[in-house]
C-alpha cells in the first residue's frame, strides 16, 4: 500500500512546487499591476508626498517588476514573507493565527456537504422514474442556485434574529476565553477538557458551516445519483440481483462503494471552492479566519497579506487534492495494481 502511495505523494510534491511558483508569479504580477499605492497606505494620513516617495523607494516599489519579484522570492525562500502594511506585524504570524479557524470551518462544512450530498444523492436515486423525482430534482436545483453567503443571511435572519436559537457572530460566547493550543478551537477545547467551550464553539459554527455545506451539497447529490445510475448498468449488479440480494443491500454494499469514487474526486475539487467560499461567509458571520483577514487586506491594499493568503489557499487546496488522490488510491484496488 505505502509503495503505491509514496511515489504519488512524491510526484504531487514536485508538481506542487511548480504550481506554487506559477501562482506566486501570477499573484505578484496581478497585485502590482493594480493602481493602488501600498506606500501611501502604509503611512499615516498626514504623511507628505515627499515622505510617501521615500517610502516607495524603501519598499522597493520604484524597481522594475521582475527585480521586485526576484527580491520577494528570495526573501520568501528564506522564510521572510514580510510585514503587513496595515498591522505592521509579520504576515506569517497573522496567517498562522487565522488559518486554523478557516480550516476548522471548511472541514466541518465539507463534512456537512458530504452527509447532505450523499443522503440527498441516495434519495434522488431512489425516487428516479417516480412522480416525486421532478419535485426533488427541482429542490436540488434550487439549493444549487443559492450561493453560500445568501444561505448565511437567511440563517442569520431565521435562526439568529427571528428564533434566536443560535449565535451568529464570532467563535465563542462572550464570557468564555479562547484556550491556548493548536488554534483549532474544537480540538483545543477537548484537549483542555472544557466541554463548555467545545459546545459554545460548536454552536457558533453551526450556521456558517451549514451555509457553506448546504451550498455545496447539491453538486455532490447530483454526481452521486448519476454515478449510481451508471453503476446500476454494470453486470455485477445484475449478478447480485440474480443471487437474490435485497435492493437495499445492493445499493449500500455494492453500488454505493463504486459510485462513491467519482463523488470523492468531486469533493476534493469542491473543497477548493468551499475553502474560497469561506471568505464571504466569514465576513457575514464575523468569523475570525483567513477570509476575514483577506477582505481587510484587500480594503487596505495590504499586498504582503494578500500574497501569503493567496499562497496559503493554494497550499491547502493542493494538500486536499493530494489527500483525495491518496484516498482514491486506497479505495480503488484497481489503481493500486496498475501503479
Amino acid at each position, binding site marked *: 500500500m505505502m509503495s503505491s502511495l509514496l511515489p504519488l505523494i512524491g510526484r504531487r510534491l514536485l508538481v506542487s512546487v511548480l504550481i506554487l511558483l506559477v501562482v506566486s508569479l501570477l499573484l505578484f504580477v496581478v497585485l502590482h499591476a493594480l*493602481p*493602488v499605492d501600498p506606500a501611501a497606505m502604509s503611512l499615516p494620513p498626514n504623511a507628505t508626498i515627499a515622505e510617501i516617495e521615500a517610502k516607495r523607494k524603501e519598499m522597493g516599489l520604484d524597481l522594475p517588476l521582475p527585480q521586485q519579484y526576484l527580491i520577494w522570492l528570495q526573501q520568501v525562500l528564506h522564510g521572510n514573507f514580510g510585514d503587513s502594511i496595515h498591522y505592521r506585524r509579520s504576515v506569517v504570524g497573522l496567517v498562522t493565527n487565522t488559518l486554523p479557524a478557516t480550516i476548522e470551518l471548511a472541514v466541518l462544512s465539507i463534512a456537512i456537504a458530504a452527509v447532505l450530498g450523499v443522503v440527498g444523492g441516495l434519495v434522488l436515486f431512489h425516487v428516479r422514474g417516480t412522480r416525486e423525482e421532478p419535485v426533488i430534482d427541482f429542490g436540488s436545483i434550487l439549493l444549487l442556485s443559492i450561493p453560500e453567503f445568501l444561505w448565511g443571511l437567511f440563517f442569520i435572519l431565521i435562526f439568529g434574529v427571528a428564533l434566536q436559537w443560535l449565535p451568529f457572530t464570532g467563535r465563542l460566547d462572550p464570557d468564555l476565553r479562547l484556550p491556548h493550543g493548536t488554534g483549532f478551537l474544537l480540538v483545543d477545547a477537548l484537549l483542555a477538557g472544557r466541554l463548555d467551550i467545545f459546545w459554545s464553539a460548536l454552536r457558533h459554527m453551526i450556521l456558517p458551516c451549514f451555509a457553506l455545506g448546504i451550498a455545496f451539497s447539491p453538486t455532490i447529490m447530483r454526481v452521486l445519483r448519476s454515478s449510481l445510475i451508471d453503476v446500476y448498468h454494470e453486470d455485477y449488479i445484475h449478478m447480485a440481483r440474480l443471487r437474490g440480494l435485497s435492493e437495499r443491500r445492493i445499493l449500500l454494499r455494492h453500488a454505493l462503494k463504486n459510485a462513491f469514487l467519482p463523488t470523492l474526486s468531486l469533493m476534493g475539487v469542491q473543497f477548493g471552492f468551499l475553502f474560497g467560499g469561506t471568505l464571504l461567509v466569514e465576513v457575514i458571520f464575523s468569523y475570525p479566519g483567513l477570509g476575514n483577514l483577506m477582505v481587510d487586506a484587500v480594503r487596505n491594499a495590504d499586498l504582503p497579506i494578500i500574497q501569503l493568503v493567496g499562497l496559503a489557499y493554494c497550499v491547502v487546496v493542493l494538500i486536499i487534492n493530494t489527500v483525495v488522490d491518496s484516498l482514491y488510491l486506497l479505495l480503488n484496488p484497481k489503481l493500486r495494481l496498475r501503479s
Partner: protein
Amino acid sequence: MTFELERRALLRMLGLTVAGGATLTDCLKAFAQETDAVAIGWPVDVPAWDPNQRFSPEAQSIFKLVFDSPLNQDPKLDLVPNLITKWELAKDGLSLAVDLRGDVKFHNGDPMTADDFRYTFFERIQGPDKIDTKNSWRKISDIEVVSPTKAVMKFSSPAPTAPQWLAFLGSYVVPKKYMQQVGVEAFQQKPVGSGPYKLVDYQLNARIVLERNDDYWGGKPPIKRVTFEVIKDPSARVAAIQSGQVDLTTNVPVREVTRLQHEPNLAGEINPITRVILLQCRDDQGFADDNVRLAAHHAINKEALSKAFYAGAAVPLSVPVSPDTPGFPSDYKFAYDPALAKSLLAKSGFGPDKPATIGFATTNGQFPSDFDIARAIQQMWKEVGINADLQTIEYSKYFELNRGDKLPEATLYSWDNGTGDPEIFTGYLLNPKLPFSAWKGMDVGAKVLDLFNITDYQTRIDGYKDINKYAVEHGATIPLLQSVQTLVRKKSLSYEKFGNGWVLANTMKWG
C-alpha cells in the same frame, strides 16, 4: 403505593424547585450581565495594540478606554485636561510647557511620569519603532523633563496645533519602563495603558474584552465589563442588535435605523459628526474653466441629498468644515441655484444641448450611500448641462491616481477630523504637500501653507475661515454634507454623545 405517590410528589417538587431556581438564577444572571456588562457591535478591529502605531479614527473609541491621551476633548470637542492639567503654547509656537497629573498609575502599577511622556512623544519618535506618531510629531526636537510632573515640548518649527494633536489620533502615553522591558511585540500581546479599562482578552478580527480598572484616577466607570464584537458586515450588525446579541452598534444603514426605531426596546440615532463629504476638484482638463466648476457646485441640491440618503440629518455644507467647529464661517452660504449654473455654463459656451464633459469618481461602500450620492449628483449635473462619466474606485486607489495625476475632474470624498480644528480640514484637504488634494493650483495652496506657521489662535482660525470661503468661491472644492454616524442601542443603555463620533463605554450606563 403511598410511598410511590410521595416519591412522585417529592420528585415533582424537586423538579419545580430546580426549574424555578434555574429560572431565577438565569434572570439574576441576565440582570447582572445587563447592569455590569455591555456588548458593542463595532465595525472594525484595532490595527494593533500599540496605540501610537497606526492612525485609525474608528479605533479611537476602543483605544481611549485602555490608554490615556495627554489632553482630552469634551462632547463639544473643546480641549480639556486629562493626563495634562495645564498647558501653554509659547507665542512663537516653538515650545509647549505642560503640567502632568501626579496620581496616574499604569495597569501594571507603575506611576506615569514626565519620563513616560518624553518616551512617547520624543524617544519613540526619534527611535526605530514604526509608528504613525512619527508623522504627527515630526516637528518635535526635544522634550525637556523639568520634574516628574512638568515637561516642555520643543519644536523645530512653529506647531500651533500641538495641543489639538495631544488629544488626537495615536497620541496616547505608553509606559516607558514596561515597553522597554518587554519590547513592542510583547507589548502588543499584553498592552498596558493607564485608561479606565484593562484589556483581558483579544481575538484578532473577532472580540475585545475589557475589564474596569478599579484604580483609575478619573473615577470608576459604571460598567464593569465591555465586550467589543468586531462585526464588519452592516447587515450582520443590524441582525446582532435586533437579536439582542449586542447592546449597541454603529454604522448601520440609515434605512435600518429608521426601521429599528420602531422596535420597542431599541433606540436609533443619526448623529451629525465632524466628518465632511465633499468633491475633490482638479484645476485643469474639463474643470480648467472657473465657470464650469462653479456651475457644478450651484447645480447640486444638497438638501435633497441629505433627505434622500441621510433622512435629512446630514447638514448641507457651504465650506469643507463641519458646523460648530472653529473654522466654520457661520455667515457664509453657497447657493443652490440651477439657473445660475446654467448661465455660468452658457458664458463658457455650454448648455443642455452642448454639455460640458467631465470625469467623476466615487467609492462604493467607503461611507454610507457614497455611490448613490454620486449618481444623484450626476443627474443634477445633467439637468444643467454637465455630462459626468461616473467611475467607481477603491479608496486605496485614490492616492495612487492622485500621485499619477490620473484622478478625474471631480472625486467624491469623505474626510474625518476628530479635533474639529480647521487645519485638519482645509489645511490637509487643500495642502499641495499632502497626498489628498486634487487641486494643484498654488493660489489656494500657498495660502494654506502660510497658515501652518501662524501661531496666534484667533488669527489662524480667521485665516482658515477666509481660505474656506476663497476656495469655495473659486471652485477649488465642492463641499456637500456634514456626514452622520448611525447608532442603534438598547433603550435602557445611555451614553454620552461626542461631536466627533466617539462612542465611549466609560460614559455608558444602564437604566
